[in-house]
């Protein structure tokens, strides 16, 4: 199968699903789905000739005849035990199983809704236009459900959403979708973990639209540590109103090919967005981060710190765009991607992109790619630490910097352990 064949097979699946609805509207968003499908047909799958996909070829992803129809769903209760990546993690409060929402015990101040319960009041496409990009269009066309979470007041408790794609004997394409609202002055802590259960190839095409009202705060952790050779594409759009505050940590360690699109729109003065990424690739893993931070109004701040390590034949790509609109004076925007290239066959691509249309701004970016610091290595060895252990300590320290501000102790520790494991550092040496 190739991209064109997959495209027509998906269009055929869409028609079939429409018919199965027996001419009843397929969710309140049926017209929107149709528009999205048309957009998908027009856009097609991106190739490396597409500027935004210059370094990441989807050819290895698009060669499977994915099924989009929902396979028989596993029991969420049984899944917990089946997913080793959930060990040592907080309990799951909401499952998105092949895109279908299964709420468990959610914190009291977090309201939950979905297609099944809320019908057409579920917002779709308000942050990410349905026809803007292939994978957003595809998700809009096929998402079997939209899980809506809204926070009111200060909720210190972490909310854990597990996105699970569970194939049933054949390649599966899943379209999980979240819609998140944090109401004025509310504070939210959200963990979204991505997993697969089953052996067949999987492509998870995740979309989330996030709206932060005035003075709202969201800490969002994206947990991408799936040990399987799976494919994951995430597109998250966040809009921040006046004085809203967003922090995102992306822990990207697992999967065969991973692409994260993180689009931040600062639309109210005083809004602040902080993006952090910890990435490690090995084998032939490909992890591609794309960020876009739009400073649409004055007096907003943004900061991006991504730390990446590429080993063996792995590839890390970081494309970070900061767009300062006319009139967005007093903008303060910073971006940094720092990478360690540990093998001659590994690749790091870093592209900072700045577009600045205001004159009273502070905007800086930096991208470095290098090897481990030989002086530091020698210093550690000169105290009796074996070279392999010294390297592991330095690697761990390098990546950990991106997670230093992560407030949840449990997550920070678990991430630390996973990073240590990848760096071949025994866990007991973390103290």
């Amino acid at each position, binding site marked *: 199968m190739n991209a064109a064949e997959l495209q027509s097979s998906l269009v055929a699946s869409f028609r079939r699903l429409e018919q199965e609805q027996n001419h009843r509207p397929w969710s309140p968003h049926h017209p929107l789905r149709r528009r999205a499908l048309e957009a998908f047909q027009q856009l097609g799958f991106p190739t490396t000739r597409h500027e935004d996909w210059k370094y990441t070829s989807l050819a290895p992803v698009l060669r499977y005849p994915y099924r989009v129809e929902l396979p028989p769903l596993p029991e969420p209760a049984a899944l917990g035990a089946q997913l080793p990546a959930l060990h040592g993690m907080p309990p799951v409060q909401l499952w998105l199983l092949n895109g279908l929402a299964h709420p468990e015990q959610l914190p009291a101040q977090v309201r939950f809704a979905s297609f099944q319960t809320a019908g057409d009041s579920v917002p779709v496409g308000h942050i990410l236009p349905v026809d803007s990009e292939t994978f957003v269009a595809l998700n809009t066309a096929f998402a079997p459900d939209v899980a809506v979470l809204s926070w009111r007041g200060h909720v210190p408790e972490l909310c854990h959403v597990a996105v699970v794609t569970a194939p049933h004997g054949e390649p599966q394409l899943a379209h999980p979708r979240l819609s998140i609202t944090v109401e004025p002055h509310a504070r939210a802590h959200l963990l979204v973990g991505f997993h697969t259960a089953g052996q067949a190839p999987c492509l998870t095409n995740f979309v989330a639209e996030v709206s932060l009202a005035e003075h709202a705060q969201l800490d969002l952790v994206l947990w991408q540590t799936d040990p399987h050779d799976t494919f994951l594409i995430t597109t998250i759009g966040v809009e921040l109103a006046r004085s809203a505050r967003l922090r995102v940590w992306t822990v990207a360690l697992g999967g065969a090919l991973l692409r994260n699109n993180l689009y931040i729109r600062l639309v109210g003065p005083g809004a602040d967005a902080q993006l952090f990424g910890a990435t490690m690739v090995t084998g032939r893993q490909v992890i591609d981060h794309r960020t876009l931070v739009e400073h649409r109004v004055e007096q907003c701040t943004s900061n991006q710190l991504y730390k990446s390590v590429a080993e063996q034949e792995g590839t890390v790509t970081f494309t970070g765009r900061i767009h300062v609109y006319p009139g967005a004076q007093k903008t303060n925007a910073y971006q940094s991607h720092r990478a360690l290239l540990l093998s001659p066959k590994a690749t790091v691509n870093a592209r900072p992109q700045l577009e600045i249309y205001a004159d009273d701004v502070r905007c800086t970016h930096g991208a470095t790619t290098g090897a481990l610091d030989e002086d530091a290595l020698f210093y550690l060895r000169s105290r009796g630490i*074996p*070279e392999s252990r010294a390297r592991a300590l330095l690697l761990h320290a*390098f990546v950990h910097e991106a997670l230093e501000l992560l407030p949840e102790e449990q997550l920070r520790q678990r991430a630390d352990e996973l990073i240590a494991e990848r760096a071949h550092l025994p866990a007991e040496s973390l103290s």
Partner: protein
Amino acid sequence: MEPILIIRNLRVAIEGREILRGVNLEVRPGEVHAIMGPNGSGKSTLAAVLAGREEYEVLEGTVLFEGKNLLEMEPEERARAGLFLAFQYPVEIPGVTMATFLRTALNEIRKVRGLEPLDPVAFLKLARERMEWVDIDPSFLQRSVNEGFSGGEKKRNEIFQLLLLEPRLAILDETDSGLDIDALKIVASGVNRMRSPERAFVVITHYQRLLNYIIPDFVHVLYDGRIVRSGGKELALELEERGYDWLRPDSEEVILPTVDER
């Protein structure tokens, strides 16, 4: 007593330039040797080669550490065998805490000494005690190695590591540079506390000042890659007074036989 360290005719180059041009030195347990010399004479090169820096090329000569060929050992093996270098420029390592670093190092060294590894609690107890000896706040254990330390704190931190790791032979590479008199006294008292009949020190310094507090048994002058003069502690005072020029190989003054030829 058998020497801990025997250096014979050591010739070392970096980037094709010969820096050490035939160094001879013997150090026995209990002794403190000072190596003095002008800038560029090869003092720090000697320290770096002994600790195992790889960018130096050994052209000729041997170095025996407790009878073993030191030059064939990896830097970490040298440390585990009991060699310690106090760095002239201690390296900052963001993200690695002092506690993690030193507990890992100490346990590696304890392993070869046939001792059980220290758990975090026992380690903290020992570390706090030794930090007090050189007036370092225990909170430094939770800080990244040398990161944001002042010049004096970095040097005291080197001596703290010396106190913790208890080597057989410690080489101090210009530990006095950039220290005020109070810090110098703290560093010296740390070193003096560690002096024992089993342990030896090689103190590399440009100035005589440190040697007022760490009294050496022998003073050697390294000049242009060779030890051109050796004597007792009074040689340091003479150097302080007269500088190094009179020791230039082409100087008219007679070069006396060195202690190495005793």
